[in-house]
């Protein structure tokens, strides 16, 4: 059973057709990279998966749960899908540790010490345990993004969504976040990453998807994608981005 299965998904922002009849599925343990020009609908696509955007037609099934209008299905899906954002979106008044434990103590009923232990385990996992007591403003961008990854991992998701996780970072901090993502990949996490880090895509992706104007234009293994792109729009995009 695929972990994500989207069929004939349509999304409109008013008059603007943001997702055009998208068929997309991801297998358990599969790592998919989505790239494409700005405004092509990459964020919209992955945000539909955990219900941050609602689609207007088509069906979305995540881990066997059909996404419907009812609130219950969204919550079930979110409990198995972690998300990492471009701007980190940490809670600024809480320490790194508290960012991680909030959902554990308030929603999952762990005691504070159980939650702390679990959070420290994942903060160590992203190699930032020594900064656990600091608040986001006291951390660098790369450190904040790793805390955000740990925060999502604390809920033990089946699937991780990354929406341009390194685009807001200074160049010298990109690699520490990518390394964290590579190590997640090595553990067999199912991942969908919107990113323009093509080195990362080549290294970890099973499949690379090129999106343009709300449609999936090309889906290939990394070697095929970079060496023998078929669609002219993919070629044009690659020639721009690879220079």
């Amino acid at each position, binding site marked *: 059973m695929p972990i994500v299965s989207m069929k004939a998904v349509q999304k409109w922002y008013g008059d603007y057709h943001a997702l055009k009849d998208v068929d997309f599925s991801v297998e358990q343990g599969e790592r998919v990279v989505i790239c494409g020009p700005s405004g092509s609908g990459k964020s919209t696509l992955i945000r539909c998966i*955990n*219900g*941050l955007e609602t689609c207007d037609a088509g069906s979305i099934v995540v881990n066997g749960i059909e996404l419907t209008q009812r609130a219950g299905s969204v*919550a079930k899906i*979110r*409990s198995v*899908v*972690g*998300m990492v*954002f471009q*701007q980190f*979106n*940490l*809670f*600024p*008044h*809480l320490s790194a540790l508290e960012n991680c434990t*909030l*959902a554990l103590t*308030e*929603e999952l009923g762990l005691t504070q010490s159980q939650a702390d232990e679990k959070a420290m385990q994942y903060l160590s996992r992203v190699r930032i345990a020594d900064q656990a007591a600091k*608040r986001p403003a006291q951390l660098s961008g790369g450190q904040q993004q790793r805390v*955000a990854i740990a*925060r*999502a991992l604390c*809920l033990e998701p089946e699937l991780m969504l990354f929406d341009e996780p390194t685009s807001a970072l200074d160049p010298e901090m990109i690699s520490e976040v990518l390394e964290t993502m590579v190590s997640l990949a090595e553990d067999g996490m199912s991942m969908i990453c919107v990113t323009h880090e093509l080195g990362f895509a080549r290294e970890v992706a099973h499949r690379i998807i090129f999106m343009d104007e709300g449609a999936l234009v090309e889906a290939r293994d990394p070697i095929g994608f970079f060496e023998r792109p078929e669609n002219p729009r993919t070629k044009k995009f690659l020639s721009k981005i690879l220079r």
Partner: protein
Amino acid sequence: MDNLRFFEIYRSSEYLGLLFDGILISAGLTITAGLLGVVLALVLASVRYWQVPIVDRFAAAYVDFIRNTPLIVQLFFIAFGLPAAFGYTWPFWAHALLALTINFSGYFAEIFRSGFASIPVGQQEAAAALNLSKKTIFRHIVLPQTVVTMFPSLSSQFIFLFLTTGLISEIGVPDLTHAGVFIDSRTFRSFEVFITLTILYIVISLMLKSTLQIWFRSTIGKRVSD
């Protein structure tokens, strides 16, 4: 102006006593109304945040009503209008306390409401993706950040409202303004009397302001700044 007689009126312990009582009444009523007003404002703003059916409309209307009518009219309405209609008698200070509490709560509620509404979209999305309930989001994300970011606005609004409380002298409360007006009517030493009031209001304002600041820094602010 005869310098030798300047401030001579304060040789009278009667006048000093009036001023002293006035200070206690003005500051006491303001602080009490401020505390009650903050609590009421939190309730009003929360009702709107939670969109409690019907009640939220009343809360919104109440806040608009308070912020768009003069305090003096609110005071007269509560001190004279309502007792005339319903036939009860309260001491002056009770009318003043009720009116000030209601008045303060309207302004504070608006500050809380804008604070609640100003949590960045990114944090709301992260909270949603983490499956946090609306209750957790309110209690652990919205409320604590609002209290911190809105504290300066609440504090300066409070000082501003303190300065308007002189109006309670109009319904007969012997507050600081009332004491000044009375001494002036007896002595006709308007310059000395009103410069005294000015200085006293400034001193009380600064004291209230710095007390609030010290309290904030040593409690809530401490977590945020270290």
